[in-house]
């Protein structure tokens, strides 16, 4: 007797343990194998871009906090840089250094969540993510020290940062810097050569070099595919040209490479912070910028290397106190472009891993 089989549709999300928020994948499955997939998003749409058009330039900063809420500092920084470029404000040296230190700390924190969540998706029951959250807490403590917040910092200002760091910040940072390399080693010990992890993620969800470039991917996803592209080197902003660091890249562009690249990037971030702490000068931390101001008519696009990829802010000014148009190039959203091609032909279990290895933040995807 010939059994008749047919593909069936399975909604993964929007309420699913592994969709990192409210992402939805409408998958067509043949048994466990994905034959077609349609990503659906918009469940977290808040209209940030439109909201920003009603707000003053300073008032937009809290909105940027809520884009990629795992990396608020980077968002703050990119937005402030955009307005500074538009208005031609010169930022004091010390503020630039503080921005670099804090956004690199933020990168480590974001990568910790990304790798932890990825390993959790692989089925390593909570252990790696709890170890990683432990160190993320320490980073959050540091960021709380400077801004008073643990998630949405609203710390950077147009023309610098809102206030200088407290006296106890630098010693606490030094202490953290001394501990962190050992902890990164600990994460590697945990699962780097684990047989099951390698079987699960090596060669799974390969994003070829060409595909990565054509789909506009950026950040660790692009670098894991073997493209040495990091805006900190390719188009140095702030003061990144003063620091020495490497760009870790992967070879195959599979999930395992993306995981490895993130771990390596944490090490590089530590290197940058170390140099920045040595070089940081004293002085003011904020240029004289009025609360309400009229930037000259014009448009500007500024991009930085956020933890998840190229984060760009496009601001159009019509010489009023609010932007005429405000647009965010969200790395999470654009990294998802190739998702369908990466997933088709793999099983559900792989789909979760591949999706997890891209590392998205729904706040940024839906905006």
């Amino acid at each position, binding site marked *: 007797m010939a059994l008749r089989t047919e593909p*069936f549709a*399975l909604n993964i999300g929007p309420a*699913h*343990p*592994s969709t990192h928020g409210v992402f939805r994948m409408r998958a067509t499955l043949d048994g*466990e*194998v994905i034959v077609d997939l349609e990503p659906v998003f918009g469940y977290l749409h808040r209209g940030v871009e439109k909201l920003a058009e009603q707000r003053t330039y300073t008032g937009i900063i809290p909105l940027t906090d809520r884009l990629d809420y795992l990396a608020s500092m980077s968002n703050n920084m990119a937005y402030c840089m955009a307005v500074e470029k538009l208005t031609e404000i010169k930022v004091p040296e010390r503020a630039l250094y503080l921005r670099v230190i804090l956004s690199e700390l933020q990168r480590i924190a974001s990568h910790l969540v990304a790798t932890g969540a990825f*390993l*959790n*998706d*692989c*089925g*390593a*029951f*909570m*252990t790696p993510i*709890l*170890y990683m959250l*432990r160190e993320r807490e320490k980073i959050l403590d540091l960021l709380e020290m400077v801004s008073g917040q643990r998630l949405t910092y609203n710390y950077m200002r147009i023309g610098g940062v809102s206030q200088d760091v407290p006296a106890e910040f630098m010693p606490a940072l030094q202490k953290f810097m001394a501990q962190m390399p050992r902890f990164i080693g600990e994460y590697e010990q*945990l*699962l780097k050569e*684990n*047989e*099951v*992890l390698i*079987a*699960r993620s090596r060669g799974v969800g390969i994003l070829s070099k060409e595909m990565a470039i054509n789909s506009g991917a950026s950040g660790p996803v692009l670098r894991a595919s073997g493209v040495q592209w990091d805006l900190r080197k390719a188009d140095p902003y702030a003061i990144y040209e003063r620091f020495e660091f490497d760009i870790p890249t992967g070879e195959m562009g599979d999930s395992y490479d993306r995981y490895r690249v993130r771990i390596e990037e944490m090490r590089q971030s530590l290197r940058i912070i170390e140099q920045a702490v040595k070089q940081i000068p004293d002085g003011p931390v904020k240029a004289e910028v009025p609360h309400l101001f009229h930037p000259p008519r014009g448009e500007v696009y500024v991009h930085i290397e956020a933890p998840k990829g190229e984060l760009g802010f496009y601001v159009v000014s019509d010489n009023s106190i609010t932007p005429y148009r405000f647009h965010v190039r969200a790395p999470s959203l654009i990294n998802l472009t190739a998702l369908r091609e990466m997933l088709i032909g793999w*099983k*559900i*279990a*792989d789909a*979760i891993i591949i999706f997890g290895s891209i590392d998205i933040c729904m706040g940024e995807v839906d905006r």
Partner: protein
Amino acid sequence: MAPANNPVLMVTLPPDWPGGFWWHLLVFSVIILAFVLSMVIGFIYFERRVMARMQARLGPNRVGPFGLLQAIADAVKVLLKEDIVPAKADKFVHLLAPIVAFAPALMIFAVIPFQSGAALADLNVGILYIFAVASVTSVGIFMAGWSSGNKYSIIGAMRDIAAIVSYEIPMVLAIAGVVLVAGSLSLNQIVMTQDIPFILVQPLGFLLFFLAGCAEINRSPFDLLEADSEIVAGFHTEYSGMKFAMFYLVEYAEAVAMSVIISTLFLGGWRGPWLPPWLWVIVKTGAVFFLMVWVRTTMPRARIDQMMAFAWKFLLPLALINLLVTGVEILFLPVTIPWTMVVINIVIALALIPLWSKIFRSGWSKVEV
């Protein structure tokens, strides 16, 4: 009915045992029920605390002294929850499934000896009975997955059936070595023969049985059927309240059962110095369970095809080799010196496992779908 040679139980009861067959049945049923339930509660607490310790957190420590009553508080909570049956569910099967899954998990304990001869039934085909009964649980799990009318549930249920079909074979073959050495299928008899614990005589058998056992009771790294990061909660996605509690109970009752079986077959069961026999059973069971918890906290989850490949290409060949080696040894080695067998088997295990891992890793584990 004379207690001395009961035809149903095939057990020689202790001469001072009061009453007859029914009395024996009643007493042991109560003992087993109490043992299983208290072990389950203990194991839930134990697992949560040990896992917490391994994961750099505290674990339950608020309810009762050291959080000991946490499992009971959870049980009360779950009993008070609304029992939701999905509209598209097959209602009768949905109700029946947890019961079908739970009963066999309890029945396994009927043949576990707590000390010499102290079992509900010392069947002379004890091991066969265990495997026959243990696989019935999967029927319950499949019923749950099917009747829920949820796609995640049915995927979980299908995975369970695939796992059970594959893993029963290496599991039984791994045990065959023990049976050959002991010369009996009765669990009590196997314990009696273990002057040296069989983990030393059958190191490879122990390893294979432990891994296959983890898969059989759906523990990490083979917990595919309720893989929470993939298919939400697998077969029990649609269960709530008391029915969910039953599945939770099954999960841990099976873990207790598997630990008890491993400690009986490989670690000498109730035998041991100083402590009373029943305490040895509990200590050894706890030790085996600790190993399972350890694996769970460390390992990522395997994929379904990798899991199948592991059963058919790794466990099965090794189990066959182990059986062959044991058979040859029993034929040719003098029975009086078991230590020769210990040395040979440990050497073989140490040589075979890396060798097979190498073969397995070099592309043989690939499955074309």
